[in-house]
């Protein structure tokens, strides 16, 4: 059912929004949280399962050290306290994607708590920082994957039955929960989006997850409530699930503000419930009422011993944290002399780390940026692979740039050399040699090619002489073709005009 909504600007003029965000991140560990089953994405169904993650009687969990370490590192990167002692708990409920009939999670003793993340957004008064308070980050496990058969295609409603693949069951998850985020006013959608984006950058920087929202390794639930004024007590919140792109985070907040406002303005109450976000239509629909599902009867997990991270371990992990992505970004913008827009292009292309590596190896920042966001992005895109998967190293780019500045390669030949690298023909010098890539610097062959081009098109010389210099383009083109791109176009032009006795 489509519910009434109020225009967003009107809604914000009447109510004060309060946000809450829950983000689940799937860790990139080799094995599951409590057993040694592999976590590789896309394996045939039910081939990465064992008695532990299938919940077979008598099976006992064994805790993944890297899962715990990743949780601590995430907590530290989010400015959290790290628990001196904490336990897992059982969250009891029945659902076919969870074969144990409980999820092993943390309840009142999260491994990380009381942190914050600063995010920047554009406001009417320029760029502004909002501090998002973080309540906790805790460890838990993912569920299996249901597919629904019969009824409307693929939907759980009206399905005749379901099929379950437990490969994903037990993969480590970290749930990161904010405190109520107040004071955003009309910028609530932008703050929500900026927070998830900043969190994604931090998690990627930590290397703990591939953070692919479209593949579900980063998932976001949006909680929202409205109140009359910032002084009023918190209103009833809705929890919108399945918000799985940055754009949707922003849209879902906006939609819920408009929906709540319409209800409250009409004198209705907001129902505390779980809602489902629909990417295609941009609306949320009612899921289950929250109240009767909340009796999870948590109790301490008896099969896993408490975790008491030593302060030495925590400090060691803290010292090894990478630079905060926002700080690093600001530093690079200054070092490289980029605009914010250029930097956005770099970050969105996924080339930032690759450019940093190239610059560290001695490549000029502008050149490194040009190759990675231009030609190499195009090639990766054509092949449907990630930039990191290209076999191009900083050393390749460095050598390429040396040859270009020495004048022995031009841009076109450099691209051919890179193509050679990508198809595995060896290093730059080997490819240049094997493919015979070199700018023709000797005027003799160029003059011969010019003569040929003029002979093939006798009228063109007169046209140029009459002052229509643009006609020179076809001659230069013919010479470039004849020399297989190895001529220096500017030199060809120069020689042509010299020959015809015209000056530019």
């Amino acid at each position, binding site marked *: 059912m489509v519910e009434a909504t109020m225009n967003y600007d009107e809604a914000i003029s009447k109510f004060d929004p309060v946000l809450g965000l829950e983000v689940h991140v799937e860790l990139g*560990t*080799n*094995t599951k949280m409590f*057993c*040694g*089953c*592999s976590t590789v994405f896309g394996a*045939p*169904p*039910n*081939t*990465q*399962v*064992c*008695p532990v993650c*299938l919940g077979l009687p008598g099976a006992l969990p*064994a*805790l*993944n*050290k*890297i*899962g*715990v370490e990743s949780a601590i590192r995430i907590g530290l990167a989010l400015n959290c306290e790290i628990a001196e*002692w904490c*336990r897992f708990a059982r969250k*009891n409920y*029945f*659902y*076919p994607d969870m074969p144990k009939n409980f999820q092993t999670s943390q309840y009142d003793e999260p491994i990380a708590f009381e942190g914050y993340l600063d995010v920047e957004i554009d406001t009417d008064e320029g760029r502004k920082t909002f501090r998002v308070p973080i309540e906790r980050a805790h460890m838990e496990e993912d569920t299996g994957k*249901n*597919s*629904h*058969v019969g009824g409307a295609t693929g939907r*759980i*409603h*009206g*399905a*005749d*039955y*379901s*099929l*379950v*693949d*437990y490969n994903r069951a037990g993969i480590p998850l970290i749930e990161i929960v904010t405190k109520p985020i107040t004071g955003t006013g009309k910028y609530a959608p932008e703050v929500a989006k900026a927070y998830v984006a900043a969190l994604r950058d931090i998690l990627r920087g930590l290397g703990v997850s591939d953070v692919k929202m479209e593949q579900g390794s980063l998932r976001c639930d949006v909680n929202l409530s409205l109140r009359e004024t910032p002084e009023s007590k918190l209103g009833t919140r809705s929890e919108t699930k399945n918000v799985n792109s940055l754009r949707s985070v922003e849209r879902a907040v906006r939609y819920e503000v408009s929906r709540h406002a319409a209800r409250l303005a009409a004198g209705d109450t907001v129902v505390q419930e779980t809602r489902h976000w629909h990417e295609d239509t941009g609306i949320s629909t009612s899921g289950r009422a929250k109240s009767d599902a909340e*009796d999870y*009867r948590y109790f*301490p997990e*008896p099969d*896993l*011993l*408490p*975790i*008491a*991270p030593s302060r030495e371990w925590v400090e060691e992990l803290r010292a090894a944290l990478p630079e905060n992505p926002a700080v690093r970004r600001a530093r690079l913008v200054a070092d490289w002399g980029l605009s914010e827009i250029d930097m956005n292009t770099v970050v969105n292309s996924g080339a930032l780390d690759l450019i940093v590596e190239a610059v560290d190896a001695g490549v000029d920042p502008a050149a490194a940026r040009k190759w990675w966001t231009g030609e190499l992005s195009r090639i990766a895109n054509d092949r449907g692979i990630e930039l990191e998967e290209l076999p191009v190293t900083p050393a390749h780019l460095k050598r390429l740039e040396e040859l270009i500045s020495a004048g022995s390669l031009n841009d076109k030949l450099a691209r051919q050399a890179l193509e050679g690298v990508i198809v595995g023909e060896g290093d730059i010098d080997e490819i240049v040699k094997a493919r015979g890539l070199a700018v023709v610097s000797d005027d003799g062959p160029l003059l011969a090619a010019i003569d040929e081009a003029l002979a093939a098109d006798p009228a063109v010389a007169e046209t140029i002489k009459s002052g229509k210099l643009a006609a020179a383009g076809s001659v230069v083109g013919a010479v470039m073709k004849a020399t297989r791109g190895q001529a220096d176009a500017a030199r060809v032009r120069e020689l042509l005009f010299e020959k015809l006795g015209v000056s530019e």
Partner: protein
Amino acid sequence: MSGISQEDVAHLARLAHIDIPADQLGHYAKQLDAILNAVAEVSSLDTANVAAMSHPVPMTNVFREDIPGVSLTAEQALSGAPAVEDERFRVPRILDEE
């Protein structure tokens, strides 16, 4: 008396997916009450200086290295399933029709 009501029993039965006929709710309420009362004797002790214990083993930080071990084959994993389709566990409809 801890006071387990028939409504409490019905609620717990619902959460545990156990069918308990209405005429037996009182029977179980009485039994659960007796169990809770027996356990409640512990609260008569002074435990102000005793840390709560959830695990009888005085150990922490028992970890496994992140190295893949042996998993079951799909055939083994599915061998005990009441119904199988497409290498997956086939389960009854999850949501009742509304």
